[in-house]
């Protein structure tokens, strides 16, 4: 070994730490943010975010081919993070009037890292809750699940949940704890369902015999809802027990018998269960006098947690969410003549990182710019 390892690492890190690379990162971010913003007109915020900002590569349809055309938000963010970290090893110094820059760039590292982790690990769900109702789960906005419910127990219901991705793969689904199998005949990510009583006689059981299914392209705008639909055959010891149409577009679950027990089957929004329950006691929707302009929405809920023996009221209103056990409940919407309140439920373990990061960036910038201004004024005086 002729040169010290630190010198070799430095030589290796130097191009990674260059200001030129930082400029590239900023330039690429500028293009990506602008493009991703414009794309929201047609894609909606959710999908644009998925395609442009929460991806490693942006794919675009070029003459029928799905081509990689631009680095995605995660790639640029990671590259920038590497650039900054390398710069801390190679370039940034604490002394020589550079203290402010050091702090602000350290804050930037934390900000980028926090945002990357947030985008990868945040779970957003919603909780629509009627006045008087108690819920111990929230629902996914877009993801669905197939459930089989056995209500035959006196103390509890036994719920078997199948991720929709498993249904999408088709084939036969085998359950370790259920006496039957499900064969997926058809799967449609989105379908239009219409009543049609003049259907030709078919093997379809339940409501499915009266419904016509028309496959639809997957809806991309966030206001549009996908009716996730599947045609399932229940097989009990090799014997077909009938074919069932299940869809998130159908309201109530359907029932069937297998191995002497009754089961309910349905596709519904994927649920996240919580160890506590929320009961909606009151909901208020205030408007400015003489107008329909909303002034405030507020929900009075009771929080019940048998584990911690907590039973207390909480008020959730505009800009004042309820934070409890890593979940935050926000007043998001309402419905049913003001008897239904909808909370947005967010779980983000990295929620605090931007607060610290931003404080660092701002303090660093303030110090640096003040130092520069004092120098300038002294020189010109």
């Amino acid at each position, binding site marked *: 070994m002729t040169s010290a390892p630190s010198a070799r690492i430095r030589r290796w890190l130097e191009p990674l730490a260059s*200001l*030129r690379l*930082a*400029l590239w990162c*900023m*330039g690429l*971010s*500028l293009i990506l*943010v*602008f493009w*991703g*913003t*414009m794309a*929201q*007109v047609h894609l*909606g*915020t959710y999908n*644009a*975010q998925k395609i*442009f*900002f929460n991806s490693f590569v942006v794919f675009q349809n070029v003459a029928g081919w799905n081509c990689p055309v631009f680095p995605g938000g995660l790639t640029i963010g990671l590259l920038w993070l590497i650039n900054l970290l390398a710069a801390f090893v190679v370039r940034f110094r604490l002394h020589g009037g550079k203290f402010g820059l050091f702090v602000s760039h350290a804050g930037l590292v934390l900000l980028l890292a926090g*945002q990357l982790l*947030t985008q990868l690990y*945040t779970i*957003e769900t919603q909780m629509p809750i009627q006045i008087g109702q108690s819920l111990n789960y929230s629902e996914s906005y877009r993801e669905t699940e197939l459930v089989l419910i056995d209500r035959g127990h006196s103390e509890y219901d036994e719920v078997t949940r199948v991720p929709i991705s498993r249904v999408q793969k088709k084939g036969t689904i085998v359950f370790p704890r259920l006496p039957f199998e499900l064969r997926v005949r058809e799967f449609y990510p989105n379908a239009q369902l219409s009543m049609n009583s003049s259907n030709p006689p078919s093997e379809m059981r339940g409501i499915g015999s009266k419904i016509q299914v028309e496959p639809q392209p997957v809806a991309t705008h966030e206001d549009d809802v996908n009716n996730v639909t599947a045609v399932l055959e229940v097989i009990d010891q090799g014997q077909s027990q009938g074919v069932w149409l299940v869809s998130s577009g159908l309201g109530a679950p359907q029932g069937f018998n297998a191995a002497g027990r009754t089961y309910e089957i349905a596709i519904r929004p994927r649920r996240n269960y919580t160890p506590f329950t929320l009961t909606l006691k009151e909901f208020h929707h205030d*408007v*400015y*006098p*003489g*107008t329909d*302009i*909303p*002034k*405030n*929405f507020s929900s009075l809920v009771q929080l019940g947690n048998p584990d911690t023996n907590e039973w207390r009221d909480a008020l959730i209103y*505009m*800009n*004042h*969410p309820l934070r409890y056990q890593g979940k*935050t409940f*926000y007043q*998001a919407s309402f419905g049913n003549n003001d008897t239904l309140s909808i909370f*947005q*439920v*967010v779980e*983000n373990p990295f*929620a605090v990182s*931007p*607060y610290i990061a*931003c404080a660092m*960036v*701002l303090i660093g*910038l*303030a110090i640096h*710019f003040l130092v*520069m*201004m004092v120098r*300038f*004024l002294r020189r*010109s005086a």
Partner: protein
Amino acid sequence: MKNQKLSRWPWIVVGVMALYVLASFLKPAHDTSMAIEDFAALPVLNGGRIKPIDTVARVSLLMLHGKQTLKTPTRKLSATEWLMDMLFRQQQANTYACLRVDNPDVLGLLHLEQRRPPLYTFAEMGPALAAIETQAGQAEEVKAELRTPYQRAIVQLQTNLILYQKLQNTARPADMDRFADFVSAPHSDEAHQREHLHFMAHVAEFACVPERAPEGVKWTSVGESLLTHLGNTANARGALAFARMGDALRQFDPVEFNAALTQQQEWLRQTAPGEARLAKKELLFNRVQPFMKSLVIYLLAALLVFGSWLRRSSNWARGAMGLVGLALVVHTVGLLTRMILQGRPPVTNLYSSAIFIGWASVVMGLVLERIHRNTMGVLVASTIGFLTMIVAHNLASSGDTMEMMRAVLDTNFWLATHVVCVTIGYSATFLAGFLAIVGIVRSALQKDWPALDQQKLQTMVFGVLCFATFFSFLGTILGGIWADQSWGRFWGWDPKENGALLIVLWNAFALHARKLGATRGQKFLMLAVAGNIVTSFSWFGVNMLGVGLHSYGFMEKAFVWLLAFVVSQVAVIAVAVKQDYFSRTN
């Protein structure tokens, strides 16, 4: 700049402009002895807040007609005079060409020919009312951002016609004579009375009668108040006053009109004195139009700076300084008055953001002038002041500029911190961009512009850009924190958030590029000018996308102007590129 004898004329110019502002405080004269200005000051509840009738009149006329005054064949009506006819003499009002219809397809539907100006009377629309309603109903089924120009125009016309008819039935059933007698008539007529009053209560555009209620004062419309007191209408004093005013106006009886008005003022003094005072303040604010006044003065100041460069005279520069100072005082008083009337921080909607961006730019421009003393700060301050006032003036036509804040925005804390910081960031970025434009254009036109002055200008741009970076970052972050508090995510890639982020990124890009050394001089100025494009996109462009939680609404006319602004900035950059190229080849 030659040092010449200081002359007195700049101060005379400033004095004249100050008189021009002060003169607007005077009550306008009317050719009738009716106390029209007192009527204009009556407080009403409309759009969720208490405002003078004058504001209702101005905003309604602006929405229907596009201006705050109306020319009739015989004379020019003020907004309140027009509204009085709308409220009390409906048949007369129907002969005023106060409905603006630009779209030729809509005119086709109405069987009307195009004319200049494109103003039509309600009477002309009469036969087509049903058709308009049907067509608008069909158009409304299409999502707002996907509507064709015809569909947008027909929906707009229907909205305007609804407002028109609501106004006409707010104070009395359209064209009923002797309304006061009608409501005081004996009981045999009650079903008939109820029918009319129910309709009025249902469609009333504003509530002008304060009634004592257990929880304080409840504002009711004329129809509602008379319904409550039916059979004993003497108790509906405020509503009856309006009925009498209307009857008097229809019979051209100024004495009776003023007597009824005094009765209403007396009732207000007893029930809602605070509201009456507030409405009077707003009436004065409407009359003075401080932002229009500062628009004119800023323009004059900018012209004087150019003059000072051409004449190389410090007199002109002093005049410009004085004028910008005067305009800033008027601007500040206007801004503060708005804040007091609304009880809000300065920026609550797109209109007020224009007012505030202008104000902050002017203040920063004057600070620069104080440091550098080279008339650059004054020039840029007056130019941005003038331009933002024009933007604000055009934004005002979309309705009440002091509308109430929707639920999630109803927080003075975040409006005062996030919104103010972001708009200061906009202001500083514009200031840097406009300074850079001055630098580029001046060095293109004036070949002997000293290199030292050019360098000085670049230092100014750099300093302002640092300031801009700090505030746009701070504002963007505070927005993130607000979003985290109210929607549960710090960052959601919402268009308005992205717009703010673009400014931060662009400013950071420019500062780092300068550090790299390759982009000193003209190239750095080009980046600063491009910052104008980024900022205008963030300020206006994202609102035109029609998506996102922050959007203020779709505005197509503004889009053309935004495009024109972007093209002008690209042209400036092109000039700089050309200069940069020649300076290197020589």
